């Protein structure tokens, strides 16, 4: 079934709001599942309070050097593309934080002095909420590599379910990992110069990955018409607009989903999904 990534470029535009409310509005008519791929700052669980029954640690393999076998030749440091190893005088140093866990060092070592051990990056938690499956990833504080967690998280996708992926902000590795292989990217923006600038960047990434795009404009009355003009020029459909409303901001602040506070919004999110279906046929 369809895989929808909710992405944005700029942070704080309302990705989680859209992902959470879309899932709640489509359930139970559609077999939805929600995956929070913003593993640096996962927030969907704050609105859905899921029952997370399974935990799976995600790690990368980092080298450990057997000092008795190591010949201090420096071949590993030379081969490492990430400067995670260095030969300093008579000592081989390993920087776990810089290591990408590729294993090239152990491949090049002529003395078989390199073994590998797992270094935990974070966790993937799966369970259910409101009667549909929910999963998210959490990067440990101080760790840099979010993508391995996103890849493991995406293994939880059930092909028989409509998958909604709440994606990280930005356009870098984590966003690409989330958008890779989805059917459509719903880009959430706001009508400000920041929103427009970052929307263009997000459209660029989605198009590079050959993922079709649609746009939702949040706080649509706080800004100007340049986002709409851009979408028209680029023939990108605008499938939802949400005005700024102190009442919406207040329920959001407390972690209450919009459709729980105002059930009238359900129909708007259902229509949004129908627009996406039309777009893909």
């Amino acid at each position, binding site marked *: 079934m369809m895989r929808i990534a909710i992405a944005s470029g700029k*942070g704080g535009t309302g990705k989680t709001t859209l992902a959470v409310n879309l899932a709640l509005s489509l359930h139970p008519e559609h077999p939805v599942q929600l995956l929070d791929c913003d593993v640096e700052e996962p927030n969907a669980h704050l609105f859905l309070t899921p029952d997370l029954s399974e935990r799976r640690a995600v790690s990368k393999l980092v080298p450990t050097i057997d000092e008795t076998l190591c010949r201090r030749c420096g071949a590993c440091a030379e081969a490492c593309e990430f400067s995670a190893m260095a030969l300093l005088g008579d000592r081989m140093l390993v920087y776990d934080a810089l290591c990408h866990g*590729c294993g090239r060092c152990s*491949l090049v070592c002529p003395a078989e002095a390199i073994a590998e051990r797992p270094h935990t990056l974070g966790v993937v938690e799966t369970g259910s909420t409101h009667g549909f499956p929910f999963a998210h990833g959490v990067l440990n504080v101080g760790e840099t590599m979010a993508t391995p967690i996103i890849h493991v998280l995406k293994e939880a996708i059930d092909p028989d379910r409509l998958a909604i992926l709440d994606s990280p902000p930005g356009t*870098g590795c984590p966003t690409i990992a989330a958008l890779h292989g989805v059917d459509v990217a719903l880009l959430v923006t706001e009508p400000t110069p920041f929103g427009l600038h970052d929307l263009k960047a997000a459209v660029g990434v989605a198009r590079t990955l050959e993922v079709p795009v649609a746009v939702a404009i949040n706080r649509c009355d706080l800004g100007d018409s340049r986002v709409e003009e851009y979408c028209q020029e680029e023939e990108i459909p605008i499938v939802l607009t949400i005005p700024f409303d102190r009442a919406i901001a207040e329920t959001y602040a407390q972690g209450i989903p919009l459709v729980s506070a105002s059930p009238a919004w359900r129909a708007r999110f259902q229509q949004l999904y129908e627009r996406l279906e039309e777009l893909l046929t």
Partner: protein
Amino acid sequence: MKQILFLSGKGGTGKTTLAAAFAALSRDQVLADCDVDAANLHLVLDVEIEARGDYIGSKEALRDAARCTQCGICVDVCRFRAISPDIQIDPYLCEGCGACVTACPEDAIALEPRVSGQWFNARTPWGPLASAELLPGEETTGLLVTEVKRNMVSLGEETAAQQAILDGSPGIGCPVIASVTGVDVAVLVTEPSVSGLHDLKRIHGVVKHFGIPAYLVINKADLSPELTQRVEAYASDAELPILGTIPFDRTVSDTLASGRSVVESGDSTAGNAIRKIYQRFMEDSNAH
């Protein structure tokens, strides 16, 4: 040169708005946009680009089909599942590590450097700016942040700048950690919501992990007095000094739309609140 970095964990809380306002209120400084995925600082400054260049940050494995015997050793060795069983390399999964290059018995794979973005230095009314833009589909965010910071330091040396204002990226991962290195003080910007508070705790964990002193600003504080109280309670428990709160004010988005900082628009409730925050920050951080 004292480096002041704006961070938030959660996106869209007002890092750039506050960084630009601090820039407009200070002198003898350099500016750096470390949110290279979505660099916005130059949009609120009157910039004149003075230098620009390609940034070659990562490498990509390329296969020579003529040499490849389709033995599949590379498929097994790649831990990023970037090579399909029919030996096609997916550039978006390729990490550029070269394990396949080492493993290939036929010398059929080479690592090629790729242009992953552009750095640029610009003149602004408030001091020189170092910034960058990542190309669509490119992934070397952390390295590009390091490049921007290197440019910032050179600009600072050239102009004998006393302080640097760095606009950070959302999240807690690679680009954030690259931006944190060498910083003297962090200003954390949050908003009163369960998400804002959750993400604040994580970014505060990161700056503590790296031993960087931090201050807190609560933006749009009046949108939820209840959550503002909860954020304040956290800050008090965690010994995170609060510089002040900023009320929700439409002037902010209006002045942004005109490409200016909120403190340049004369009297506004948000602008006045930021001036007070700036003053408190300068007094307090200079005292330490």
